[in-house]
């Protein structure tokens, strides 16, 4: 399977695609193709994010954004696999990772589709807090679409499982929450992705604070309640 043909298969022929994952057909080439295409798309989106600051920030974000998604996958994959196993799933770890990679690939495609819009705002606005919140919003939408694919894929791949189907569906829902929390904390740890205009380029910022407090602070500044320093 061509690395980019996997996008066509996921978006247009997803039932067959998930059916093949269920039957374990071509798992390795599928995973390789999804990994490569999602890295490429995420890198491109990351480069646009960092382009508001400097060349080095663009380069750094192009590396860090794929790293963010893949590190989150590595951290969260065992939880989903073992809890599915406990509730009667017969899926292998490879099948679970393939499903998660499908979600990441869809997220990456959606992010890429937003990249021209991001370039548009890059050209037409210089407000850092707005640009940051725009990215948070875009990532949330993209993540949501990716997660919807994961739920659909889990349903198709798990079809035919005898016991614990309801419990496994709940496991997936809970896992999505965990994935979102881990992902947001991972993003906070790997920041900056955009780079505050008043600060010099740094590969990583000091630990401290958290993602949610920062989003609320940015909202507060945009709404005129206070100024973030």
């Amino acid at each position, binding site marked *: 399977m061509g690395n*980019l*043909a996997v*996008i*066509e298969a996921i*978006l*247009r*022929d997803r039932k067959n695609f998930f059916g093949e994952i269920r039957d374990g057909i071509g798992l390795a080439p599928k995973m390789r193709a999804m990994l490569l295409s999602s890295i490429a*798309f995420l890198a*491109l989106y990351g*480069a*646009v994010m960092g*382009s508001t600051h*400097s*060349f*080095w920030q*663009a380069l750094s974000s192009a590396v860090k954004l794929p790293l963010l998604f893949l590190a989150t996958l590595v951290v969260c994959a065992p939880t989903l696999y073992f809890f599915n196993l406990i509730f009667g799933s017969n899926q292998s770890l490879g099948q679970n990772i393939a499903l998660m990679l499908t979600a990441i690939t869809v997220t990456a*495609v959606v992010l*890429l*589709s937003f*990249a*021209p819009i991001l*370039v*548009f705002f890059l*050209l*037409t606005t*210089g407000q850092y807090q707005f640009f940051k919140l725009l990215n948070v919003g875009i990532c949330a939408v993209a993540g949501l679409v990716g997660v919807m694919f994961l739920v659909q894929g889990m349903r198709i791949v798990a079809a035919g499982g005898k016991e614990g189907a309801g419990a496994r569906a709940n496991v997936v829902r809970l896992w999505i929450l965990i994935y979102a929390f881990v992902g947001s904390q991972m993003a906070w740890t790997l920041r900056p992705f955009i780079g505050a205009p008043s600060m010099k380029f740094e590969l990583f910022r000091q630990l401290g604070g958290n993602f949610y407090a920062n989003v609320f602070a940015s909202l507060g500044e945009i709404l005129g309640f206070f100024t973030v320093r």
Partner: protein
Amino acid sequence: MTIDDVLAQVRARLDLEADREHELLEEIRGHLQDAVDAAMARGLDPEAALAEAASRFGIVATTGELRRAHAGWGALDGVLAAAVPVVLALLFRWLIFAPDGTATGWREALNRPAFWVIAIISLLAPLARFRQRRAVLAVWALFWGLSLATALGGAVRW
């Protein structure tokens, strides 16, 4: 049952891009009509003739083959339409006009012949490359329109 009913069953299984699907359905309609005419010439009534034609066509097997043979690259066109302008914008911004990472104004870029050469090639390249030219051109027109408007207006602060 009519030919349209048979075509509706075929359509439900094809799941291709709309224009390609329409072409195929029209082609299948022609073949089915010929087969029905031939069967009626052999003395079958219209309903039996259509049933025989549909059976010979083999909806499940044939549509599966057609789907595999005609599966498009529409999603990839979309990926390219999004990626190409963004990649070129980044190349312009960071590698061609400001390789050292410093801000170079678009006004300054406008005075450089290289800018115009690359812009024109970039605008024309999608014409030769992609099937969905209108979509690519629309993205490009928007992108370059905005770029030039902001450059001329001096609103961009890199």
